[in-house]
């Protein structure tokens, strides 16, 4: 019978150990218990989730299907309360008992909460407004609460406290950090380095830092209102986050009779003291007197334990980890290793400070070897220093080279000079050798290597070096990741190939594409395929409504509460009193909760329930403004030469003409245009997908590939033409070229640099490839096939097209503004 392996704790160490065991072909019947209700996620990334730079869904390392696929029985939300070492059973709080042959304890740690009066409510856990920062649930709760409040105090100025403080700034305006020690990150940094960090954080981020401050009381009756410090000061706040350190989750092990000090005591094979079949890994383990609070050591432990348990190397031993850290703390680069301060009289210590820039560097040398280094604000040399520290390399005669790049372009270690066992990814413990052997085994894409080895999948700072190693190891044979070039994820073909196949097989509907080319229907690919087929076949496209995104099914933009926004066409941003009156009447009649001007010079009616859309359109009786699709959106214009004293071209007329012609044309992404009457650029034409600028002498400049959304880019000058007619033609030709060649959701700001503006010009302006006439004809066909979707209103396209999908609650939920 297969041996039964039970793992308590489904966090980073537990799941990683199981992965390592599977990778070694370990043959166990595996059962895992985790008291969080999820699969394993990257706890490090909670900082990013709090800071709003990472979506929750992006942090999962093993989703539930991973457990199923590997035959692992996972009990989420299940806490183990006792181990019976003699009967070899674990008991969960839900009353179940599970037998084991081998047991791994990976219960991690929890936030240490100092005994400050007022932190807890008797019988109710934390006081209202008090949070720890350890789990996804903590993070969610903190975000939810912080959003509705104003001032936060973070207790603790270590790594976690700093990350919490930075993240909270994303949700509320005032953050104060209170730290008991004399300087920040006192476990890793000396006083001057900590002080440099403090100055940067206060100045750049606007977080107020109070050091040498003991918190003595949390104030507030029903909810937190402030904290009191030992010197009597009171800092008002409505959120308190406790990040005062961590404690190993070892009570359950201790109560079950295992030897526990600060963690579960283990030997060099991660075996619990005096036990034959019980092991511990991760933050809950204490090895040679050390407990660790960072992930890198856990990976080493997981490997040793897997080697040992699977018999790949029964004598594998863990000897502890050198903790050299390179972190981005609250947006500031910090690295530290070894000593923080010289210890002996003859230790050499070199320090460089540039307080204005928030830079501090210090290295400590003993007998010609590096024994400590600290860098704040500039960590360019850290790769070299880590190497020197780990291996005791001889140091350069010119000591300053340890801190600066003197001459030469270097700045980064040369890939070929790195030893094979050097750790590249410090989050996931991946060495240069591991990356190289993955490449040698045939995986020659950067993303493929990252998936296989997990290098670069932690905090992400090592991605550039991973890329360089892959390139170097592949000897110039790096392959593009094929999936990265697919037009949509569900059909394994780049766009040109896909278009050929569609033509070859005469595929006119999305379902026929799946049936013929893809195998399985894929929800994530439907919208992209619908757009492509519509572009290719125009009126002959077989429209399956389920392939459309909801916005395109009902021709309006879905809002956060499930209502829709309705934007009538307003060509070039020009309107009339009659149109305004009509809009006003409709807004009144339907009690539209919010009427708002959009960035594209139109009027937006927000908060319209789905079932009311046809009626609203009928009452408006105006064409759709397409504010919802991956399509041609608007042409923003300035008043131009008719009224403006600077104007040198009639930007308004040209803008209206462009919008009239290209309205509603679908594409791989949105197309936002602008025409401006002189280079003063009042209509922001330099930052549009296509922008037209009138210049003196009756000429027009055409810019393409600009953007001013989440991504900002000035467009590239495509060409300068002499007439508005030429602008019309080249606009259509460029847009068609983009429609045919861009990947799904690839905006022009990515597309134009990918192709290169010179190449775009060759094709669109100079017609080097002889396809201009074809592009023009294809665009003409699309223009001719245009039909205002709001005419759909009388005859619903499908049963219940406008039937409400919500609400449970009474609509509208958006605030009504007077």
């Amino acid at each position, binding site marked *: 019978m297969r041996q039964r392996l039970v793992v308590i704790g489904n966090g980073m160490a537990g799941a990683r150990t199981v992965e390592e065991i599977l990778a070694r072909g370990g043959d166990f019947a595996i059962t895992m218990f985790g008291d969080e*209700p*999820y*699969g394993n*996620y990257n706890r490090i990334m909670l900082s990013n989730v709090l800071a709003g730079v990472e*979506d*929750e*869904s992006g*942090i*999962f390392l093993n*989703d*539930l*299907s991973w457990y199923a696929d590997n035959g692992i029985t996972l009990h989420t939300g299940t806490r183990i309360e006792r181990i019976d070492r003699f009967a070899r059973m674990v008991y969960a709080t839900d009353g179940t008992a599970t037998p084991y042959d081998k047991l791994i304890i990976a219960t991690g740690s929890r936030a240490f909460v100092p005994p400050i009066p007022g932190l807890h409510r008797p019988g109710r856990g934390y006081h209202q407004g008090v949070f720890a920062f350890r789990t996804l649930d903590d993070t969610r709760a903190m975000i939810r609460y912080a959003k509705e409040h104003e001032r936060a105090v973070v207790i603790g100025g270590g790594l976690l406290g700093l990350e919490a403080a930075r993240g909270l700034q994303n949700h509320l305006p005032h953050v104060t950090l209170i730290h008991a020690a004399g300087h920040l990150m006192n476990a890793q940094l000396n006083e001057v380095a900590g002080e440099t960090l403090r100055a940067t954080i206060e100045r750049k981020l606007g977080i107020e830092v109070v050091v040498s401050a003991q918190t003595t009381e949390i104030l507030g009756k029903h909810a937190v209102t402030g904290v009191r410090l030992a010197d009597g000061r009171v800092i008002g706040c409505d959120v308190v986050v406790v990040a005062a350190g961590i404690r190993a989750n070892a009570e359950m092990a201790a109560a079950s009779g295992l030897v526990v000090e600060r963690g579960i005591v283990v030997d060099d094979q991660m075996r619990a003291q005096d036990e034959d079949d019980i092991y511990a890994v991760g933050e809950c383990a204490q090895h040679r007197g050390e407990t660790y609070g960072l992930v890198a050591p856990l990976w080493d432990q997981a490997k040793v334990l897997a080697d040992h348990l699977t018999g790949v190397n029964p004598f594998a031993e863990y000897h502890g980890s050198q903790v050299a850290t390179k972190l981005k703390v609250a947006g500031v680069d910090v690295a530290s290793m070894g000593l923080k301060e010289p210890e002996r009289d003859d230790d050499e210590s070199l320090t460089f400070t540039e307080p204005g820039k928030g830079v501090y560097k210090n290295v400590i040398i003993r007998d010609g070897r590096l024994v400590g280094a600290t860098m704040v604000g500039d960590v360019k040399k850290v790769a070299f220093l880590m190497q020197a520290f780990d291996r005791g390399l001889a140091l350069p005669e010119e000591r300053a080279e340890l801190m600066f790049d003197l001459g030469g372009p270097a700045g980064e270690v040369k890939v070929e000079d790195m030893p094979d066992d050097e750790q590249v990814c410090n989050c996931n413990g991946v060495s240069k050798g591991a990356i190289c052997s993955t490449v040698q085994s045939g995986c020659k894409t950067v993303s493929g290597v990252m998936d296989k080895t997990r290098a670069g999948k932690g905090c992400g700072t090592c991605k550039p070096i991973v890329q360089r190693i892959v390139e170097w190891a592949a000897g110039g044979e790096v392959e593009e990741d094929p999936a990265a070039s697919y037009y949509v994820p569900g059909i394994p073909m780049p766009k040109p190939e896909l278009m050929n196949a569609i033509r070859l097989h005469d595929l006119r509907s999305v*379902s026929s594409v799946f049936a013929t080319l893809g195998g*399985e*229907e*894929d*929800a*994530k690919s*439907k*919208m992209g395929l619908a757009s492509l087929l519509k572009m290719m076949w125009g009126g002959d496209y077989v429209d*399956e*409504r*389920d*392939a459309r*995104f*909801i916005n395109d*099914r009902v021709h309006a933009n*879905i809002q*956060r*509460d*499930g209502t829709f926004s309705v934007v009538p066409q307003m060509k070039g941003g020009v309107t009339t009193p009659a149109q305004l009156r009509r809009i006003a009447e409709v807004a009144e009649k339907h009690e539209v909760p919010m009427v708002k001007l959009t960035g594209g010079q139109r009027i937006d009616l927000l908060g319209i329930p*789905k079932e009311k859309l046809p009626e609203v359109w009928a009452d408006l009786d105006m064409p759709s403004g397409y504010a919802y699709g991956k399509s041609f959106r608007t042409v923003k214009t300035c008043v131009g030469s008719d009224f403006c004293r600077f104007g040198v071209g009639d930007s308004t007329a040209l803008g209206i003409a462009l919008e009239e012609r290209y309205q509603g044309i679908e594409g791989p992404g949105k197309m936002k245009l602008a025409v401006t009457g002189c280079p003063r650029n009042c209509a922001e034409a330099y930052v549009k997908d296509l922008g037209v600028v009138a210049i003196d002498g009756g000429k027009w400049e055409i810019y393409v590939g600009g953007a001013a959304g989440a991504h900002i880019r000035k467009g590239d000058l495509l060409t300068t033409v002499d007439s508005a007619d030429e602008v019309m033609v080249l606009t259509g030709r460029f847009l068609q070229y983009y429609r045919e060649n861009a990947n799904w959701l690839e905006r022009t700001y990515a597309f134009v640099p990918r192709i290169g503006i010179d190449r775009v010009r060759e094709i669109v302006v100079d017609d080097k490839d002889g396809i201009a006439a074809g592009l023009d004809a294809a665009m003409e066909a699309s223009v001719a096939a245009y039909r205002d979707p709001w005419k759909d209103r009388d005859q619903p396209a*499908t*049963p*219940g097209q406008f*039937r*409400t*999908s*919500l609400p*449970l609650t009474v609509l509208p939920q958006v605030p009504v503004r007077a």
Partner: protein
Amino acid sequence: MRAIGTVDEIPPGEGRTFAVDGQMIAVFRLRDGSLRATQAVCPHKGGPLADGQIDRKQVLCPLHLNAWDLTTGCSLSGQPDLAVYPVHADDNKIILGDA
């Protein structure tokens, strides 16, 4: 077991919401003809799941494109799971409850 509506109220490949005893249930008609039923409101931020896009396995919420397995209700993107309900078609009737 009870009939809550007719199959032809739902176009193939789409979903519609039905009110059942004051509860809202999203019923999806897969392109292979079979039906699936889940809670109507997205557990993430309350999006209308029946307005989402589906294939034979999953539904994507229209608001932030999180994905759930239509049959088990399990989240495929790290969200809480969905409640799912047994549902089948009897002729043109949508029958909620075990067969």
